[in-house]
C-alpha cells in the first residue's frame, strides 16, 4: 500500500468530501494561498476557489460564529483553527452554541460542523502554542471528539466527521503532519466509537490517544524484548468512547496504563481510568495508571519541554512495575 503523510491524508479527505458534497467549505486563517502554517491545505484553493476555501482576518470568534450559523442553514463548514490553544477564543460559539443548538431547537436545527485543530508539545512553540486541550471540549455534551493517531486515521475520521450531522472537533498532532503511514487509494471511512487494537498482548494494556499511540507502540516493543506482552489500543474517538473494547482488554490483561498528551489532572486519562475502575474493578490486578502531560505550562526550553510529556521509556517503566506487582504510588 502507498504511504502518505498525515498532512496529505487530511488534504485528500477534504478534497474528496468537497468534490462529493458542494456544501462543504473550509474557513479559517491562512487556509487559502498559505495552505496553513503546516501546509496541510496546499492546493485546495486552486481546485475549489476562494469561495469554498475562505481566508479570514485574525478573528476566531467571528469566523467560528459565522460557521455555526452557516452550518445551521444548510452547509457543512470545516473550520480551521490554526492552533488548538486558540480554542479558548471560540468557547462560546463552540460549547454554548454549536453543542446545544440541536437540543435547544427541539431537534429542528443541526450544526454539521467540523472544527479542525491540533494538539501536541515538543515543537518548541512555548506555552501558548503547545497545549493539548481536547479534554476541555470532550467535557461538553453535544460535541464529538476525534484524535487521529496516524495518516490512516486522519483521513478516515475526517471523512466521517464531515458527514456527521453534529459538531465534531478533530485534534491532529502537529508533530505528526509529516509522518507517513499506509493509506489506501480507495475510499474508506472510520466509524466513530470504534477503538483500534493495534497489537494484542496478555500482560498489560496500553491505551494511547493521538501520538501517544506511537509512544505506546514503542513502549510495547521495549517490553516485548523483556518478555512482557503489551496490548496497545487507540480509542480513535474519545467522544464517543468505545468502552467495550477498552474494558474487554482490561479484563484480559488485568493491568492498564492510559496515556494521553493532555494535562494529567482532570483529563482524558482520568476519565478512561475511572470507567475501567468502575466497570472492570474485580478483574484488575493493579491500579489503573494515568500518564498525561505534567501539570505545568509547556516550557519553551527543549530540555524541559521533553520531560513534560509521556515517553516510551516512561510508559515501559510503569508497565514493568505493574507486571512485577510492585506497590504503585505514582505521583
Amino acid at each position, binding site marked *: 500500500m502507498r504511504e502518505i503523510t498525515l498532512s496529505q491524508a487530511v488534504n485528500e479527505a477534504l478534497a474528496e468530501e468537497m468534490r462529493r458534497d458542494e456544501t462543504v467549505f473550509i474557513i479559517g486563517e491562512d487556509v487559502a494561498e498559505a495552505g496553513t502554517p503546516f501546509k496541510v491545505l496546499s492546493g485546495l484553493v486552486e481546485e475549489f476557489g476562494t469561495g469554498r476555501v475562505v481566508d479570514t482576518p485574525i478573528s476566531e470568534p467571528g469566523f467560528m460564529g459565522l460557521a455555526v450559523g452557516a452550518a445551521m442553514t444548510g452547509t457543512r463548514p470545516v473550520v480551521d483553527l490554526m492552533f488548538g490553544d486558540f480554542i479558548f477564543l471560540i468557547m462560546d460559539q463552540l460549547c454554548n452554541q454549536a453543542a446545544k443548538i440541536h437540543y435547544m431547537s427541539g431537534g429542528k436545527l443541526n450544526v454539521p460542523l467540523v472544527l479542525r485543530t491540533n494538539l501536541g508539545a515538543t515543537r518548541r512553540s512555548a506555552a501558548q502554542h503547545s497545549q493539548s486541550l481536547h479534554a476541555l471540549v470532550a467535557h461538553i455534551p453535544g460535541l464529538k471528539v476525534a484524535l487521529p493517531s496516524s495518516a490512516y486515521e486522519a483521513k478516515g475520521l475526517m471523512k466521517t466527521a464531515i458527514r456527521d450531522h453534529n459538531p465534531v472537533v478533530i485534534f491532529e498532532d502537529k508533530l505528526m503532519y509529516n509522518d507517513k503511514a499506509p493509506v489506501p487509494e480507495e475510499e474508506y471511512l472510520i466509524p466513530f466509537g470504534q477503538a483500534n487494537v493495534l497489537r494484542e498482548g496478555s500482560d498489560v494494556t496500553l491505551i494511547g490517544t493521538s501520538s501517544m499511540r506511537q509512544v505506546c507502540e514503542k513502549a510495547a516493543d521495549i517490553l516485548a524484548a523483556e518478555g512482557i506482552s503489551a496490548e496497545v489500543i487507540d480509542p480513535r474517538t474519545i467522544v464517543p468512547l468505545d468502552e467495550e473494547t477498552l474494558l474487554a482488554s482490561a479484563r484480559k490483561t488485568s493491568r492498564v496504563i492510559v496515556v494521553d498528551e493532555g494535562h494529567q489532572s482532570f483529563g482524558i486519562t482520568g476519565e478512561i481510568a475511572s470507567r475501567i475502575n468502575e466497570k472492570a474493578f*474485580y478483574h*484488575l490486578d*493493579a491500579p489503573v495508571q494515568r500518564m498525561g502531560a505534567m501539570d505545568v505550562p509547556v516550557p519553551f526550553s527543549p530540555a524541559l519541554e521533553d520531560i513534560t510529556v509521556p515517553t516510551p521509556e516512561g510508559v515501559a517503566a510503569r508497565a514493568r512495575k505493574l507486571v512485577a*506487582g510492585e506497590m504503585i504510588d505514582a505521583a
Partner: protein
Amino acid sequence: MPLDVIMPALGMAQDTGQIVAWHKAPGDAVAEGDVLFEVETDKATMEVEAQGAGYLVDVAAGAGEDVPVGQVIARIADSPEGGGSVAAPAPSDAPATTPDLPDGTTIIMPALGMAQDTGLLVGWNKEPGAQVAEGDILFEVETDKSTMEVPAGAAGYLAAVLAQAGDEVPVGETVAILTTDAPEAPVVRSYAETGGAQPAPAAEPPASPPAPPKEAATAEPAAPEPSKAAPTSVEGRILASPKARRLAREQGLDLARLVEAGHRQPYHVKDLDALRALPAPAATPAKAGVEPRRRLTARCGAEGLASFAAWLAAETGVRDPAPLLAAFAAASLRRAEAPLNVSVERMGYAQAFADADRAPLGRAEPNEAEPDLILRDLRLSPLASVDLGPEAVPVITLLAGPEGIDLTLECDAGVLTAPEAIALLSDFAGRLDEPLRHLL
C-alpha cells in the same frame, strides 16, 4: 518442656526446605549451638543449630525429605525417651464460663441497629433468680433510635444479671445467664462497675494457646468476634488486588496464610500460586494458636419431620424443605434480635435464609447474606458419619441414621461455648423430632 525443632525459613520466598542430612541421631544428647541437620534451599545449603540443650527426640523427617517451613521436625527433650510423636496438642474445650458464674445460656446485648456499638440497658423485667419462659421479655434496651424489649430466647432461671439499668453495654457482651435449675444465689453485678463477666485466665487449660489480651470490658461467654480467632500475626487489612481477592474468595484460598508465611504485600494474582503451594493448614500440626474444636452428634426420628412437612405441603403448598429446616435451625440458634442467616446445602445447592424463624413457616425468602450457621442435608448420601472439621461458621450435618436422622454439629470452640453448642444441637434435634414444638 521440650523444645520444638522446626524447618527454618532461610530465604525470603522459601516455602519448603530439604533435609540434606542429620548430624545427630534420635536419642543423642545435644548442646545449644550443636549442628542438628543441614537444609538445602533453592539458593544454598545451611547448617541448622540446636536452640537449646537436651536430647534429640521425635525426629519426624529424614534426610532427603522436603519439609514445609515452620513445620516441627523434631524435639529437644529433657530425657532421651522423648515425649511422644510430633502431633497437635489434643483438642481440649475451654471452660464455658468463668468459675464464679453459673453454667447456662448466655444472654447478650443484641445489635438492634446497623451502626450500633452499645445499648443502654433501660431496665430488667425479671428479678434475679426468677423463672423465665422463652418468650418472656427479659429486659429493655435503648439505642440512639428506639427502645426495644428483648425476649429471653430460652427458658430457665435468671441465674446471673451482669448489667444494671443505666449501664451502657457493648453489643455482644453478656448481660445475663439463664440456667436450667433454679440458682441458690443469683449473681448480680453492674456492668459499669465490673465490666460484666470478667474472664478468669487461671481457668485456661495448659494445652490451649495463651489468651489474647482482652480489654477489661470483654466478657468470656459473650458472642465471639471472628477476628479474635484469626492468627495474631495477621493484623489489619491485607493489601491485595481486587482480582487476587476475588479469585482467592472463589477458590476458597485465605490470603492471611500468605501473610503468615511472610510473603510480601500487596498480593496479586500470581501470588495465589504461592498460596496454593503452601502446605495445608492441617499439615502444620504443631503450629501455635490452633483453636480447639467442637463436634457433637445427636439422633432423632425422621417420622415427625416427614409428617410435618407433608402437613405443611398440604396446607400451604410449600414442598421445599430448605426454608423449614432453616427456620428450625434459626430458632435453635437464636439468642438475640439480631439478623440470623442460615444457609441450607442440599444436593449440591446452597440457599441462605435471613431470619427464617421469623418468616411464615416454610416461606422464608432466600437471600445472599453470609450465613451464621450452615445446615448440610446429606440424608440422601450413603455417608454414615462426618468429621470435616470446623468451618467459618457452625455446621450441622444431617445424615440418614438408624433411628431416622443423625445430626453432627461441628464448629470452632471460639464460635460457640460448650453449653451453647449443646443447647443448639439439642434444641434442633428436638424440633426435628417433634416439629409441633417449633410452633409452640
